[in-house]
């Protein structure tokens, strides 16, 4: 068990590689109850949500979710979040555990709308059922027709007799569901899902596999690829920034960045030499320090050592030979296209 932002959480159950491969090949279950929830309600709930996030809330339909950014005025990340449109006057935000307090304060400070902001983390536990057999597993426990929920849509229904929000979302690069339910039911639901997935060889998965899975899929982790000093344009997350949607917090800074050009950009790499370029290691280009690694790990599905790093924008493109300083030794790597892993659809 490790301390993760104040939560006592398992890094692994049966082993990171074993858990990782279970999710890619069949199904895995994650307890992600540490994630925070914030709810925005009221006549101008959409206006407030649109104003504090980078993606276009107006484009969301009821029952649809999207990935988005919560920015400071200077364009750096407060957090990266999922926005769910429950109703025209109700938005449900899933945020990072360690950021939830500051996210809530940030949104409240920006609230000059007819809307209420509620910190509701205590009302939700969250389980993630991920992998090609996620639907077959969860379907045993719910009358909701899961096949009718499209990727990044959700519905409110019941799981094993308990009211639950069932979202077809995830942080693994695999198909799957994230369910939000009352904490009092969490342990029972965890056991029910494990039983339902038994025939598929379901594995309980920890933070370790969650990290290797998201890295293969090139999904950002706050504190690594993004933080208060990094903008979504630098993090290669331009697709969640809708500059033409109207004003939002951070927009002016992003516009300026777009005009003058960003200085650094996130790019993927594969190790060529022996070793793993890990978080914080320096990256060299032609013998000179040029950037840093944000995440690095063996990729269990790919049998390679992969990672993400920041490099000067003009160098941040696939096919560049770089060196990563691993315990004072330069080790060769090459920049590559991302995501490293993409599931067959």
């Amino acid at each position, binding site marked *: 068990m490790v301390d993760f932002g104040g939560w006592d959480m398992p*890094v692994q159950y049966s082993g*990171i590689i074993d858990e990782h491969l279970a999710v890619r090949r069949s199904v895995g279950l994650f307890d992600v109850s540490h994630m925070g929830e914030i709810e925005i309600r009221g006549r101008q709930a959409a206006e407030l949500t649109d104003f504090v996030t980078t993606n276009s809330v107006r484009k969301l339909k009821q029952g649809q979710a999207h990935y988005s950014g919560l920015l400071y005025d200077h364009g750096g990340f407060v957090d990266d979040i999922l926005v769910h449109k429950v109703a025209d006057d109700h938005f449900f935000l899933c945020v990072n555990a360690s950021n939830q307090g500051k996210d809530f304060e940030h949104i409240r400070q920006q609230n000059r709308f007819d809307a209420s902001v509620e910190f509701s983390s205590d009302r939700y536990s969250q389980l993630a059922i991920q992998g090609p057999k996620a639907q077959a597993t969860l379907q045993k426990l719910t009358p909701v027709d899961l096949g009718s929920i499209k990727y990044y849509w959700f519905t409110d229904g019941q799981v094993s007799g308990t009211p639950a929000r069932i979202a077809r979302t995830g942080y693994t690069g695999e198909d799957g569901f994230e369910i939000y339910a009352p904490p009092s039911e969490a342990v029972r639901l965890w056991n029910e899902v494990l039983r339902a997935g038994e025939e598929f060889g379901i594995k309980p998965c920890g933070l*370790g596999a969650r990290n290797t899975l998201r890295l293969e899929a090139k999904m950002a982790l706050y504190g690594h690829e993004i933080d208060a000093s990094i903008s979504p344009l630098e993090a290669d997350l331009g697709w969640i920034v809708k500059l033409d949607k109207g004003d939002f917090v951070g927009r002016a800074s992003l516009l300026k960045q777009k005009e003058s050009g960003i200085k650094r950009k996130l790019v993927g790499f594969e190790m060529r030499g*022996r070793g*793993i370029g*890990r978080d914080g290691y320096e990256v060299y280009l032609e013998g000179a320090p040029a950037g840093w690694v944000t995440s690095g790990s063996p990729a*269990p599905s790919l049998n390679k050592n992969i990672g993400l790093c920041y490099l000067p924008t003009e160098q941040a493109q696939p096919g560049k030979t770089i060196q990563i300083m691993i315990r004072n030794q330069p080790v060769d790597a090459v920049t590559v296209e991302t995501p490293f892993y993409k599931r067959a659809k």
Partner: protein
Amino acid sequence: MYPENFRYTKEHEWVAAVGDAGTIGITDHAQQGLGDIVYVDLPKVGTHIEQGKSLGSVESVKAVSDIYSPVSGGITQINQTLAEKPEMLNSDPHGAAWLVKIKLSAPAELAGLMSAAEYEAYIGAEK
């Protein structure tokens, strides 16, 4: 579980010595904590290492960890198999996945290390 003829460190290494000929490894508790091991870095034969100093490192999917030498001495042999099969450290840390052989320069150091019973009590308390 923990062999009686080994001596153990708080950093989860073991040493088995006959006279001044020692074998060093990491404990089962250590491999469990590290998880899937993907690389093992060991010193060159002939290197002299002081007790408590870094002997090399083991790298798991999750992180890199230093290995500290439980005793002082000169490295006489390294376990070449681990370069090819680092995962052996997960399956047989007290046996085939030993790390290095060492010629102890101060065998008296052994007395300062934990017995199997003491080590088991130590990791029991750590949990």
